[in-house]
């Protein structure tokens, strides 16, 4: 499944870039983070419980930055392993500086394997949209937070 979109942040590009590269901020952006380990500046691991209404989906998520051109482009490979669901995702962010605000184009290719992926295919797209919306709102909040500092 491919999802993509554009979001404008009321903050300079450098701030948005900083937030996207700050593990502590990202831990607050991702849904249901219970623990967040930083291995180095390219590799992070999160233990999450994604809230899905009927119950949380527990997953160990390994993230690796596979490409970056500071401060405008980053690409991450994300592998999640949970019981009944394996997540494989590649996501990229394109940041444009619009003089004080920052336009972020993002795209993600999401693959969910395992029984949850099969059973949930009817609702996967809306759920992914929902999660994306929440992540972006949280990101917005973190950017605003960073602005204040």
């Amino acid at each position, binding site marked *: 499944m491919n999802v993509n979109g554009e979001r404008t942040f009321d903050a300079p590009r450098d701030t948005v870039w900083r937030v996207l590269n700050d593990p502590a901020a990202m831990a607050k952006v991702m849904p249901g983070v219970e623990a967040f380990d930083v291995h180095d500046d390219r590799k992070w691991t999160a233990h999450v419980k994604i809230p899905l209404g009927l119950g949380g989906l527990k997953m160990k998520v390994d993230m690796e930055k596979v490409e970056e051109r500071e401060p405008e482009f980053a690409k991450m490979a994300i592998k999640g392993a949970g*019981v*009944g*669901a*394996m997540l*494989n995702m590649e996501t990229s962010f394109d940041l444009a500086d619009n003089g004080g605000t920052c336009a972020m184009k993002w795209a993600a290719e999401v*693959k*969910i*394997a*395992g*029984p949850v*992926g*099969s*059973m949930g*295919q*009817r609702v996967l797209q809306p759920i992914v949209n929902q999660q994306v919306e929440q992540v972006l709102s949280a990101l917005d909040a973190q950017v605003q937070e960073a602005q204040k500092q």
Partner: protein
Amino acid sequence: MTTVAPQVEIGRSTLGESVPRKEDRRLTQGQGVFVDDVKRHGMGYLHFVRSPYAHAHIASIDVSRAEEIKGVYGTLTGEEVAALTDPFFQIAGAPGGQIKDFSLAVGKVRYVGEPVVAVVAETRELARDASELVEVEYEPLPALVDARKALDPEAPVLHDDAGANLMWEGVYEWGDLDAAFAEADRVVRIPELHFHRFNSTPLECDGALVEYNRGTGQWTIHTNNQFPGFAAIMMGPAMRTGLDKLRFVTQDIGGGFGNKITSHPQLVVCCLLARKLNRPVQWTEWRTDFHLSMSHGNERWFRETEVAVKDDGTLLGFRTKALDDAGAWLRYEPLGGVIWAQVTPGMYRWRNIRVDFTQVATNKAPVSPNRGYSRMQHLWFTERVIDIVARELQLDPVEVRKRNYVRVEDMPYETPNGCVYDSGDYAQMLDIALDLIGWDSMNDRRADAAARGKRLGVGIGSTLDSGTNNFGQSRLINPELQFSGNNEVATVKLDIFGEIVVTLGTTPQGQGHETTAAQVVAEILNCSVDDVHVRAGHDSYWNSHAGFSGTYASQFAVTGLSAVKGATEMLAAEIKKLAGAVFGGVPADALELADGGVRIKESPDAFLPFMACGAIINANNAGLPDDLGVTLNCRYVYRPPFQVPDVERKFGNLTLTYAAQIHVAVVEVDPETGYYDIVDYAAVDDCGKRINPQIVEGQVMGATAQALGAAVHEVFSYDEDGNLLTPNFYDYHVPHALDMPRLQTGYVESPSPFTPLGTKGMGEGGGAGIHAVCAAIQDATGAVVTTSHNPYHRVWELLEETA
């Protein structure tokens, strides 16, 4: 007083009567014994860790956390399997025959749901809990989902041992294609037809309880596998053991439809764990497991089809390229590459035919026999061709059929590839079906539907069943194979108190074998059906089976009942021989069986009841002549009259009988939504002599319901990554009571000249309902139907095409 099943009058023939089923008393009371009902002290429950990926390397497996849990008895991994067993025997030669198939994934997974590790624990729940703690690290590989891309150079390759995804290919050509196309007034071209992937989803899934006897080295396998003979020849060599060490026991089976033939990999896992853990091991496959991994029907494409026709609709010949999607493993395949050839020209007098058949592997569940196995795909093709030709030539599909059907006066009819259609009058059957459906008033009904805003469509499906495979056809796939013919066994004996006991080699799943076998025995022994005790189920220790024993391929009424007939006739002869000796040298032809015993025709008072016969032979036999040669325990092996097919010409009789089905469906389509109802349905079958018409009709109705489900809803659909999108009955919609139309049935009885009872065997049909619905949709929408699966959204697309 409650109603009691009517007693069958002694001395009256019941062949052809709907005798109440012997099985029903236990099954209506919940007293059947299905595999999950079998329990043993100390047994462990097995749960499979299954692959979440369609295609991936297995980098590592760690079972330590699972094994640490209290109540977990142990695990089994692919690595252990590879050390303890040999790969399963492959039916194919190279390249498909080079693949190495083990009972758990070794090094790589090739479809979502493939068993990777087995965990055994004290409770079902715990086994599943522990399986969640097994850590498998996968390195995902690109998945191959579309068979049409399997042979592309850049396609991911499933089996390195085979070198590519090609599993088997063969060219079948009979007659003179060039002449046929030269003679043709017109060549009808059909770029692509697609027969979709589904199966019969028996309500009971697979399962086993396996006990290992350390002292004798023997496994007792309680299972619902429907073809233990096949399972044994797969399992024995793989497990490096003699077949007598594998005892298969079955009582009741909750539906099979071919889908329970290839559970041998799971049975091997159970056997290995029963030995490893020294305790009984129980495995129940749940619905999702079944959908993910068990016996999908063959998905098939027919490409670049060309049909040589005369303007009057006379069919001269066709050529097509069949591409068969086997899924990830060849569990019974590539037999699907030849089974269709039993019905090469369908019901028609096509004399010039070429089929280029290719079978490939994909990252989907392995295919295996499914009701109508491989023939159904081909017959769908021939029926689609007829209706597309009729549309192109603007002829009535009824007329095109009648013009080309094999005629009653041509019976027995030898097809271009040497199959011999035994008997039948297809045109007559079609007339009966059209009559049932009210063909003459169809124009009024069309108008009536139109007035209600609906579009009415009518479609015909004409198909053949196959009762009794000639296993020699496997040699057309692989000339090295040493299989041919067929056989089935029955044992009939008189016990010490004169009880008539029948043992079958079959593994029935609802076909009423206990009843029909008793009817045949009663007929010959001239006794009541109620006096015949047919053992329920199958046990290989009963020694009443042969190499091809089992319940599959619509063959019981031929192979099973012929064996019963043979054994009973042996017993009847022995009873007379014994009585002759007891009566002091009366010849057999002066004796008759009647009233539960044997008597002298001319002086009926000289009567020896069966009880006396049984007692004399079993317990009171001093003084009998030395050369009497009577045991009253008669085992008979029925062997159908087959020759080994000519491998070079791909020529020979591939099955003994060809029961026929002609079905007509009437649909009403909502043109706004594509939603449609099957509003009327008629099924006319000819399976030769019907032993028990009610059972025959039940099979017809059941096969029809499955066909209608497949035509409208049922599909094993995968996304591009190889995830199964219909893993349960929520998304895989099977027909319910409200979904079924009124089913009208009719019949013709054309006894087979080739079988001892005139029976043909039946039960599978040829998927006539699918073909009839496709034709009806084509009629209603005016668009050419090119796929066997036409859910509402597909019909809406067809409507859009013609809008």
